[in-house]
């Protein structure tokens, strides 16, 4: 009899404060977990509400994608974003040309060669580099790169594809380095040991074993850089020259899609065509990033066969 009393007491205790803390913690963590989904859907909903109807209805999509004329405030407005698309793509392309070799090289050095203190210091510095605000990079583009390019290449304007490409490349490199280094670190050491025991030199180990095994992560690093390039606004706004133009050389000024939105949205009347077309640009950007991510995902799945089951 007394035994059963004890056990009910225990059962009652089980719903004490510890149980409630558990429940609250569980709900908080759940909210945290789904918040990402909620925010993405909310942002997409907002952007779609402001621009999608207009994009599919009144907007002349052929003109939107194929005309290089961007004159949203003219009497006879033109809403062509070809120049902006090309501007963003050319800056990002040049940035990747600079950032990919730099970041992969840095990752190989940090991951495979540097040891002890050197390695730790390098990692901290790379992360510090990633933390520099983009407006500071834009500042560098404006006040250092601009006169430098004018002087070195003897061109009239230093705010151009080259300037923004270099700045964006330097901006993207640190985060790409970090991701790429993580990918190299994830390659099991047994693979390196196996190759070395078969007589591979250090470089053979890197080129024939480590880089192929880390391919997935390296592609992810590059795509992250590309995403960063498409999305970067402030530094690009400051360094490209911000003039609507189809570039024919790296010394031409361009304008990026993001920079256009940032510079113009504040001055448009809410609900006007100009306002809506800027949202249409946002949707286009959204779509491009989505496609890049999808491509990455498909590639990663395709490359999955290459990674070991027991890695």
């Amino acid at each position, binding site marked *: 009899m007394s035994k059963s009393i004890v056990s009910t007491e225990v059962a009652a205790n089980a719903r004490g404060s510890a149980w409630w803390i558990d429940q609250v913690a569980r709900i908080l963590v759940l909210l945290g977990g789904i918040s990402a989904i909620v925010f993405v859907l909310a942002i997409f909903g907002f952007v779609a509400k402001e621009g999608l109807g207009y994009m599919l209805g009144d907007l002349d999509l052929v003109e939107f994608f194929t005309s290089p004329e961007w004159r949203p405030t003219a009497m006879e407005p033109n809403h062509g974003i070809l120049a902006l698309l090309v501007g963003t793509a050319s800056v990002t392309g040049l940035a990747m040309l600079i950032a990919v070799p730099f970041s992969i090289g840095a990752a190989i050095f940090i991951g495979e060669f540097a040891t002890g203190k050197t390695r730790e210091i390098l990692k901290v510095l790379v992360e510090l580099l990633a933390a520099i605000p983009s407006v500071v990079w834009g500042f560098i583009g404006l006040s250092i790169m601009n006169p430098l390019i004018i002087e070195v290449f003897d061109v009239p304007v230093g705010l151009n594809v080259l300037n923004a490409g270099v700045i964006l490349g330097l901006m993207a490199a640190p985060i790409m380095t970090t991701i790429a280094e993580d990918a190299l670190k994830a390659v099991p050491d*047994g693979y390196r*040991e*196996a190759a*070395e*025991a*078969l*007589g591979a030199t250090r470089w053979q180990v890197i080129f024939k074993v480590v880089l192929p095994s880390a391919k997935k992560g390296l592609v992810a690093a590059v795509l992250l850089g590309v995403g960063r390039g498409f999305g970067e606004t402030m530094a690009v706004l400051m360094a490209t020259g911000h003039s609507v133009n189809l570039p024919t050389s790296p010394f031409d000024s361009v304008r990026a899609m993001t920079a256009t939105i940032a510079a113009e949205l504040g001055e448009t009347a809410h609900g006007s065509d100009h306002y809506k077309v800027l949202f249409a640009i946002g949707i286009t950007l959204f779509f491009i990033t989505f496609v890049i991510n999808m491509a990455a995902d498909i590639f990663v799945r395709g490359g999955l066969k290459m990674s070991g089951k027991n890695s």
Partner: protein
Amino acid sequence: MAVETKGLSLWYGSFQALFDVDISIREGKVTSMIGPSGCGKSTFLRTVNRINERHSYVRTEGSVKVFGEDVMAEGVELVQVRKQVGMVFQRPNALPISIRDNVLFGLGLHSKKKPSKSEGDDIVEKSLKRVLLWDNVKDKLGTVATSLSLEEQQKLCIARLLPMKPRVLLMDEPCSALDPKATAAVEDLIWELRGEYTILIVTHNMAQARRASDECIFMLLGKVIEHTETGEMFLTPQNQATADYIEGRYG
């Protein structure tokens, strides 16, 4: 002698792992090395092909001769050493490339010109047949090697050494990640390769040493305690420490 060391001492940083080790391994035999964890048997093995030098804090003294040539001497190319002395590791470490590419990996590193398709096929078939793996994998040579079972992977790890025509095979607890059936299969294979190759195998498993070796070396705390014919060691150990270890009183 296939492998001969004189006064071999080794330090990991300030910790001395080998003390003045003199070992002679006879050609064409299977020699097993036994002893409790940390006795230096793996360290010894990893010194013969100098894979220990991957860690920069290793320091070695003394000489290691493989077929009369000092592998520690200045000017010796590591690549040559590792072609002659193949190694199999504790965990099967097949590379995440196709089965075929695994077998040809070593050759690809060393030869200037690539073997032709038919030469390559020939080498792959011979090597895989030698390790009794051909029948299992001949229809899927293009699949990634890490999808094989552990036993098959370990056999593949042995097979990929063969195209380089090594003379010594070092095996560092090659069966410790395998189940009993796979262990028996790999042991059979080791016995099968005996004669053509000099095999040095580190094992925790005394029954394995007894079954699958001609000679046996017992090490303790970085020193060689006893080195005799295997049957003799297990029947009439000369040293009290050996006897105690074999009978399972420690280790």
